[in-house]
C-alpha cells in the first residue's frame, strides 16, 4: 500500500508540475504582450475565462473524442495546462499594470528602452503578483489532477476513485489525504517565495 501511495503521489506531482510549468511558459509571455497591446486584453482574457468556466469533467469529455488526445496522460496534461493558464495570465497582466506609474515614468525618464523597463523594473516588481497566480494555478491543479484519474492520467485520484468504487475507506483516504496535504504544501511553499519577493514601497 505504501509503495502504491508513493507512486501515485509522484505521478500526481509530475502532472501538476509539468502542466503548471507549461502554462507559465505560455501565460507569462502572452501576459507581457497584453500589457503592450491593451486592446487585446478583453479578447484573450475572455477566452481564457471561458476555458476556466468549463467544468473539468466536461473538458476531459470534450477532449477525449478528438484525434491526438483520447484516454491517457497526454489529455490530462493538456486539460490541466488549460486550467492553469488563466490565473497566471491574469496576474501577469495585473502585476505589470499595477507598477506605480511614477516608478515607470522615472524609468522612462532615465532613458530606459521598453525592453529595459520590462526586465529591470516591471518584471521584478510584478514577480510576487505573478507567483501568486502560479500558486493559485498549482493549488487548483492538485485538485483537478485528482479528477483526471478516470481518464487514465494516474495520480492520487486512482486511489480515491477505486476506493469509492469498492467502498474501501482506507483506500479512499490513502488517496484523499496525500492530495490534500500536497495542495497545502504547494500553497505554503510558493506563498513563502512570493512573500520574499514582495517589495515594500
Amino acid at each position: 500500500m505504501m509503495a502504491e501511495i508513493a507512486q501515485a503521489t509522484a505521478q500526481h506531482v509530475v502532472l501538476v508540475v509539468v502542466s503548471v510549468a507549461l502554462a507559465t511558459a505560455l501565460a507569462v509571455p502572452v501576459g507581457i504582450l497584453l500589457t503592450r497591446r491593451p486592446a487585446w486584453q478583453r479578447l484573450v482574457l475572455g477566452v481564457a475565462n471561458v476555458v476556466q468556466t468549463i467544468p473539468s469533467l466536461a473538458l476531459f469529455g470534450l477532449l477525449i473524442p478528438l484525434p491526438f488526445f483520447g484516454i491517457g496522460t497526454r489529455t490530462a496534461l493538456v486539460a490541466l495546462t488549460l486550467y492553469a493558464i488563466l490565473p497566471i495570465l491574469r496576474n501577469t497582466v495585473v502585476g505589470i499594470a499595477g507598477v506605480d506609474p511614477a516608478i515607470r515614468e522615472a524609468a522612462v525618464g532615465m532613458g530606459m528602452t521598453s525592453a529595459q523597463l520590462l526586465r529591470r523594473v516591471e518584471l521584478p516588481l510584478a514577480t510576487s503578483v505573478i507567483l501568486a497566480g502560479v500558486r493559485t494555478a498549482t493549488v487548483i491543479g492538485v485538485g483537478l489532477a485528482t479528477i483526471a484519474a478516470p481518464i487514465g492520467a494516474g495520480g492520487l485520484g486512482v486511489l480515491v476513485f477505486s476506493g469509492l468504487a469498492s467502498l474501501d475507506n482506507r483506500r479512499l483516504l490513502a488517496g484523499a489525504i496525500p492530495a490534500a496535504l500536497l495542495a497545502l504544501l504547494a500553497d505554503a511553499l510558493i506563498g513563502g517565495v512570493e512573500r520574499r519577493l514582495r517589495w515594500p514601497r
Partner: protein
Amino acid sequence: MSFVGFDEVGARSPSGAAILEGFSLEVREGEAMALIGPSGSGKTTALKLVNALRLPSAGAVRVAGRATTEWDPIALRRGTGYVIQEVGLFPHMTVVENVALGPTLAGWEDARVDARCEEMLELVGLPRPAYGLRYPHELSGGQRQRVGVARALAADPPLVLLDEPFGALDPVTRWALQGEFRALQQRLRKTALFVTHDLREATRVADRVAVVDRGRVVVCLGAAEVAASDLPVLRALKEASGL
C-alpha cells in the same frame, strides 16, 4: 547661450484640453531656473516636454539647439537627469543599484560605474559603506531624496530636471536640502530646471524664476528681484510662501 528653449509651445491633455499655450522661455547654459505657479498651471507638463516624456502640440522645445522631436528620445533622456518627488526610486534596488543605473544604461564599464557611485554618494552625504546596500524603504524621506539627486547626476548629464523634489519633506530637511542642492548645482555647473509651488524655495535654489499661470510664462525675473517686485502675479505667491 540658451541650453533649453521653449518657442510658443502648446501642449494638450489626452482629452484635448489645452495645458500649455504660447509657452516661451529660455534657460541659459549652467543656469538654474525655477518654474513656479499654482497646481494645474502646466509647470510639470513643461518639464516633461524637455526630456520628451511628452511632445508639444504646437511650437518647439529645443535642447542644446535641437528640437526634442528631432532627438532620439532615449539619448536625450540619458543626457538629462530627472528627479521626481520621492516615489522615483526603484524599491527593488539598493541605493547603489539605483545610483548605478544611469551610468550602466549609458554603457560605462563596471569599474567606472563603481567609482562614480562612490563619489556621488559621498557628494550627497550618504557614504557608500553605511548606506550603499540599503533599500529605499530603509531610508528617511530626506535620505531618499538625496539618493534621487545622486542618481540623477550619476551619469554626469549637462541638464537636470527636478519636479518638486523636496515637496514631501519636513521643513528643516527641506531647507537643508535646498541649500545643498544649490551648492551642488553651482559647483557642477549643471543647467537645472526646477518645478515648485513655493516661491521661497524658488528664490533659494534658482538664478531666475519663471511664473507660470494658465499654461504660459507670465513673467520671468532674477531670483534677487523677486523680493522687491510688486507685480500682482507675485503677490499671492509671496503671501502663500510667507515672503
